[in-house]
């Protein structure tokens, strides 16, 4: 053995140090000395282990979390469930409160009520009463120049504006003989039916027309099965209403999400396999390199079981330490990716840890046992003679 710089090696010093140190079993001492004396090789094996565990952790974390993240992105498409009063009936007045109590605070529910009013020159126009605060959060894609914030202010669709208020002036609408004076707050542009409508605050709308909300649009969060369960729950709660999933939104989301998940799964598998390969290559090299240790142990009379146990314990220790360090680094990487890409933190999934640990130890054991199996067939004398 070479003298390791920085340690003391005269026989007396070694004896003193050994006497002073707490007694450890031969087995444990062999493990520790092997790691200390060949720091470079041990460190590179550990590094490979850490990187592989980190990458695997990050991938598994992302795979679980990204779906939730993407679902939140998909909620920007707006409502995926619509509650409509059955024909000839109206929604109960507490419908909105009921919906929110069932679906929880994270779900967004927006009431809408509709009436057809007439302009001063007799044209029909659809007027909608809603809750602006909620509508704004539900319909991110609405391009609004200014949201109404004062009494009798209305949000006017692009096309409706050319009819009722082409120069942004106040205007009058009548509904069944009742007139109302409205001031335009801002313009609404969506490219769909909303462009032909005028939006009012629900309470003003109701005191003018007396029409209660007939539709509640709901953005229900969660997986397809959770949304399905929510629809079922709502149907029991509101027998007077019809609960319809918005198929356009639900199917589009399912489609894109499935494809993304499958791609991510394939990529994560590739990445994890590659890092396992890296560990395998490094560890096999490490163990192969130590065939002289192996030969000496055998020459001194160590049994096969002891030698196998020794290398296995070494590999397992490496796997455990690598998995623990790699896990925390991987969590950090996943959090960083979440911040960079989704502008939201990825919640650390500690449930992933057992898998990373088991995988690391398994790979380490395989890469230790493989070369041992090869070495077993060789006579110790041959190795010691350097052949």
């Amino acid at each position, binding site marked *: 053995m*070479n003298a390791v710089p920085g340690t003391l090696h005269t026989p007396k010093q070694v004896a003193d140090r050994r006497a002073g140190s707490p007694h450890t079993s031969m087995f444990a001492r062999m493990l520790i000395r092997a790691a200390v004396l060949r720091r470079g090789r041990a460190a*590179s094996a550990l590094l*490979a282990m850490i990187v*592989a565990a980190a*990458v695997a952790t990050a991938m598994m974390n*992302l795979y679980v979390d*990204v779906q939730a*993240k*993407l679902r939140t*992105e998909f909620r920007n498409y707006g409502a995926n469930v619509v509650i*409509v009063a059955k024909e000839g009936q109206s929604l109960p007045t507490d419908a909105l409160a009921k919906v929110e109590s069932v679906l929880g605070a994270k779900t967004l529910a927006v009431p809408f009520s509709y009436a*057809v009013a007439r302009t001063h020159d007799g044209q029909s*126009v*659809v007027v909608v009463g809603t809750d602006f605060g909620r509508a704004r959060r539900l*319909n*991110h*894609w609405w*391009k609004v120049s200014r949201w109404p914030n004062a009494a009798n202010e209305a949000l006017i669709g692009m*096309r*409706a504006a050319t*009819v009722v208020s082409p120069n942004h002036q106040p205007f009058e609408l009548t509904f069944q003989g009742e007139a109302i004076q409205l001031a335009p707050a801002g313009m609404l*542009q*969506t*490219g*769909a*039916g909303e462009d*032909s409508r005028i939006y009012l605050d629900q309470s003003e709308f109701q005191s003018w027309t007396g029409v209660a909300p*007939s*539709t509640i649009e709901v953005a229900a969060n969660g997986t397809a099965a959770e949304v399905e369960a929510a629809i079922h729950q709502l149907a029991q709660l509101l027998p007077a209403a019809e609960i*319809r*999933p*918005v*198929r*356009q939104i639900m*199917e*589009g989301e399912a*489609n*894109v999400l499935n*494809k*993304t998940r*499958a*791609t*991510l799964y*394939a*990529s994560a598998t*590739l*990445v994890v*396999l*590659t*890092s396992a390969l*890296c560990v395998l*290559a*490094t560890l096999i*090299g490490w163990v*192969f390199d130590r065939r*002289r240790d192996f030969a000496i142990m055998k020459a001194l009379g160590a049994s096969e079981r002891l030698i196998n146990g020794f290398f296995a314990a070494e590999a397992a220790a490496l796997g455990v330490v690598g998995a623990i360090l790699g896990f925390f680094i991987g969590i950090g*990487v996943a959090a960083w*990716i979440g911040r*960079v*890409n989704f502008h939201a933190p990825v919640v650390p999934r500690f449930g992933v840890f057992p898998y990373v640990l088991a995988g690391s130890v398994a790979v380490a054991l395989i890469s230790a046992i493989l070369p041992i199996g090869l070495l077993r067939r060789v006579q110790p004398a041959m190795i010691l003679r350097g052949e």
Partner: protein
Amino acid sequence: MFPRIVYESFRRQARRKVLAGIAITLGVAVATAMIAVATDIGDKINRELRSYGANLVVTPQEDTLDVEVGGVNLKPPSDGAFLSEADLPKIRGTFWHHNIVGFSPMLPVRVKLASGSGAQDVTLLGTYFNKALSFGKDDFTTGVRITHPWWKVLCGNPGEFPACGWPDDSSQNILVGERLASKLDKQVGDTLDVAGRHLTISGILSTGGAEDDQIVAPLALAQQILGKPGAVRRVYVSALTKPPDALSVRDPKTMTPEVYDRWYCSPYVESIAYQLQEVIPHSHAEQIRQVAQNEGTVLSRIKGLMLLVTLAALFASALAVSAAMATAIYERRVEVGLMKALGAGNLAVSAIFFAEALLLALAGGLAGFSAGALLARQIGRSIFNSQISIEPVLFPIIMTIAVFVTFAGSAAAIRRAVKFDPVFALRGEG
């Protein structure tokens, strides 16, 4: 001498070389596959996002207001302006016609149903289902089956009416919305008296939207009922677009000619809308913001995610390659000792190792590139049902990366091997 040493090294230590070569091949294969998937994923997801439906709508310029509540149009049917059906194939003549996945004209007509309990007003929507059209030499089909993929035709009991399914665009058959059908108590194969015509129901339509309360018919039939041949109320266009950026939202009227050209030649939803207005006379094209605005965010999120995952894959494969190379070189210290004892300089020894690394990288890179291309194809086929194409320009890039990573991975090991004292090496120590 130099080529002979390298050649002999490959001949005599074939096993070790094969192991290092396999590591390089696998690393490069994963890197190639991931780069190919990441560069193509935008296009693939963009197509999947089309399942959200049309992102553009074309309406007549001088249209009156829609008076529509809960899918029931209260506007007098002949009111307002129309587009001409004859202009529609010109959509395929726009600059970005390759990006236009499909379009569907719509013509809602209010009709009276003579049912048992008396007359009833419903909306009959005329459209294309899967209409064969041609523009110049270009033959194509388009219609709601492409632009509205969530529309489903239900048949109930298939044995009762074998012709059940989407109606032919030239037929007099109709689809009846799910809710309307249950209200009227009509099944597939029944006839319905619409505006004095006996029409056969060829399927029950389920859309989860307003169409569930309507009748959907071929466009020509709706035009006959309305008495306005060639009339179309609006056209939904489904186009592959580029996510919006600072340039896309600018007003084309205020642009300099160069900026205008760049804007015109980018597939922004705004520029495609502009081009649709150019080819269809007296029209106004608008993005459907619910679809158009959100797909940009979803797309950029997924692309960003794949980019980061690809970086992780590249990192992992670079590490695997360098680990394998380091092991391969570390095992050959005795050789280094011998060469140095015979008087070889550090430079000469390093040159031999680097030459070997280069050969390994080229061989492994080539094999890995082919394997990676196959892998990417397999991923594309099994996930997206379409080919993931490998850009030929990727080949030199991948080869450069392979050589670079192999060199980088070998460098530390070579340096250590060269610095190693030949005496220890020859005595078999260390």
